[in-house]
């Protein structure tokens, strides 16, 4: 099964430190097509940092990134996008003062043959994508700062899927959302999964992501505690991994696992 396939993403022995602190230490994770992997850990466990290396926001000090088994050079966000890696950041990373269409296409604007911005074409596409994602969304002409948290989130998600992402990274995707919007995001994740997109979900709250994920990878103090398939472990066991670094029998321990006496 999974073992026969080439992983979509393989991050091997990644390390990065900031001013002598090992934010990520020798961490390895992998992601297969059509798979949802939850990356769990406390605040400051290094999960966001690890994923920012994949999305090009940080440069790693050591280790390799393989996309479809091939070594990938990712030095900045533009490189990551070339490999089909799209990221939805915890902070949403939208420009508040421009409208939804401008945000969707930020950095990849559609242009007319004269080289000017093709605003109508962008708005048309924005209306189409947003219509699929969030049919109630109508405020296309207003700056994003006038929108609610959920609407902003849908803009951020629409931006990621608009460009046929193959690898989607979602950092705390439901942290700012109400229950109904959270359910919507859940539906969306299932839909994207069926399309064969690999998804990293990053969260410090196991309840947000446990039911959506196929596998969990747990980090603690910058190291990977272990990996497990969600069907093999219970929520309590995963909590044990997050809090104590204790690896249950059916999980595969990593370098950060608690040393058993």
């Amino acid at each position, binding site marked *: 099964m999974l073992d026969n396939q080439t992983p979509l993403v393989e991050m091997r022995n990644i390390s990065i430190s900031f001013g002598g602190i090992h934010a990520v230490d020798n961490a390895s994770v992998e992601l297969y097509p059509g798979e949802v992997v939850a990356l769990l850990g406390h605040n400051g466990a290094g999960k966001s940092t690890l994923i920012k290396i994949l999305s090009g926001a940080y440069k790693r000090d050591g280790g390799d990134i393989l996309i479809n088994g091939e070594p990938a050079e990712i030095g*900045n966000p*533009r490189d990551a996008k070339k490999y089909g890696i799209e*990221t939805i950041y915890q902070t949403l990373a939208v*420009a508040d*003062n*421009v409208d939804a269409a401008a945000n969707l296409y*930020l950095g990849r604007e559609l242009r007319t043959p004269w080289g000017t911005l093709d605003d*109508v074409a962008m708005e048309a596409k924005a209306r189409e994508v947003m219509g699929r994602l969030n049919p109630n969304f*109508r405020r296309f002409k207003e700056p994003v700062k006038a929108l609610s948290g959920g609407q902003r989130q849908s803009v951020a998600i629409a931006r990621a899927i608009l460009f046929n992402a193959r690898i989607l990274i979602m950092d705390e995707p439901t942290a700012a959302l109400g229950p109904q919007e959270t359910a919507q995001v859940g539906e969306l994740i299932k839909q994207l999964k069926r399309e064969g997109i690999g998804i990293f979900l990053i969260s410090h709250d196991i309840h947000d992501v446990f039911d959506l994920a196929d596998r969990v990878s747990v980090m603690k103090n910058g190291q990977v505690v272990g990996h497990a398939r969600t069907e093999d472990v219970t929520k309590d066991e995963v909590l044990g991994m997050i809090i104590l670094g204790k690896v249950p029998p059916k999980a595969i321990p990593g370098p950060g696992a608690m040393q058993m006496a």
Partner: protein
Amino acid sequence: MADTVNSVHLNVARGANEHPVRRFFRATEIDTRLLGMVGALMIIWISFQISTGGLFLTPRNLWNLTVQTSSVAVMATGMVLVIVTRNIDLSVGSVLGFCGMVMGVAQAQILPQYLGLGHPAIWAITLLIGLVTGAAIGALHGVIIAFLGVPSFIVTLGGLLVWRGATWFVTSGQTVAPMDTTFRLMGGGTEGSIGATASWLVALIACLAIVWALLHARRQRKRFGFPRRPIWAEYVLGGVGCALVLGFVAVANAYYWPANIARKYADANGIAWPDGGLLISHGIAVPVLVAIAVGIVMTFISTRLRFGRYVFAIGGNPEAAELAGIKTRWVTVRIFTLMGALCAIAAAISTARLNAATNAQGELDELYTIAAAVIGGTSLAGGTGTIAGAMLGAFVMQSLQSGMVLLGIDSPLQRIVVGMVLVIAVWLDTVYRARAK
């Protein structure tokens, strides 16, 4: 069809009975902030008109106002982009001085040696030299800000001193005069105006452009099935736009050549001197045309080009812009390069107008330029601002100053008033924004 759907939705969202005035503004999509500024300008004009006993709202004074505004208005368009990206440029006055001095020396001392005095290409080569100088200075500032990480406040504060000092070194402090005759047309005056016929032609083209722009926008929205403005709103916008253009040209054409110049012209061309004097219209002044052209180009850059979109995105959220893959540092360098080039255009206007390049040219212009942009609605917090607003801001400031000159108010008091107006304008803007939320 789409119109009704949209307005129904809005009405539901904002309460069923919308006030007719509000509905008017929403339908026409007129920026109420800009309209507020026009209102302020009207109040200033009318109060000066009354207090000067009818000296203010004359074709002559209004025509002079537009000419005096053009230099700062040109720089204010660039300052908008600088401030939108949360930067500041304190050096524009000094860069203006330096570019002006370089252009002065080029046209009065260097180029005539090779081309002969009064050669028709002198003005163009001079302007090119000025533009390259200004752009290079701006690019240098931009590189230091973006790649060496020195805050723009400091870099341009240094630039303020450096370029003012450099201006002195070009001629060891001597004033350069006179300027090339063709170059001087950029400064306005009787010669530097395009006359009645050409002015009406410009007005006609402008009106056609307004109508075309409205039609084109409507057709585009129809093609994609977006909500459109009600048709009456389009007529209002087109009508007001054309009326403003025609009114402006009518005023410029109502300002006639001074009698002695007209007499000289009549003598030179063998025209008989009629009773009541020869009435020759000034028409639009060349510097005003330059400023309007700069305004149009800068509006195009900031709203229609990818570069402009990036400028605003960076202003709104620098981190998001960077994560979206925008090369934010290069955008910064390009903004400052553009600012430098605009300083050179402003320098051409002001040296041409003065018919000399001096050491003190452009002193305090950085403050007037920043004030114009800020009064025109550019937020120092970044992310918001319009080119038209900044130009209107420059016009408001110049109206105030010119009115006070007509009233015979001393220049120290003028500065006090301008300073207070700046603070009050920003305070009003803060109140407006707080309410808009």
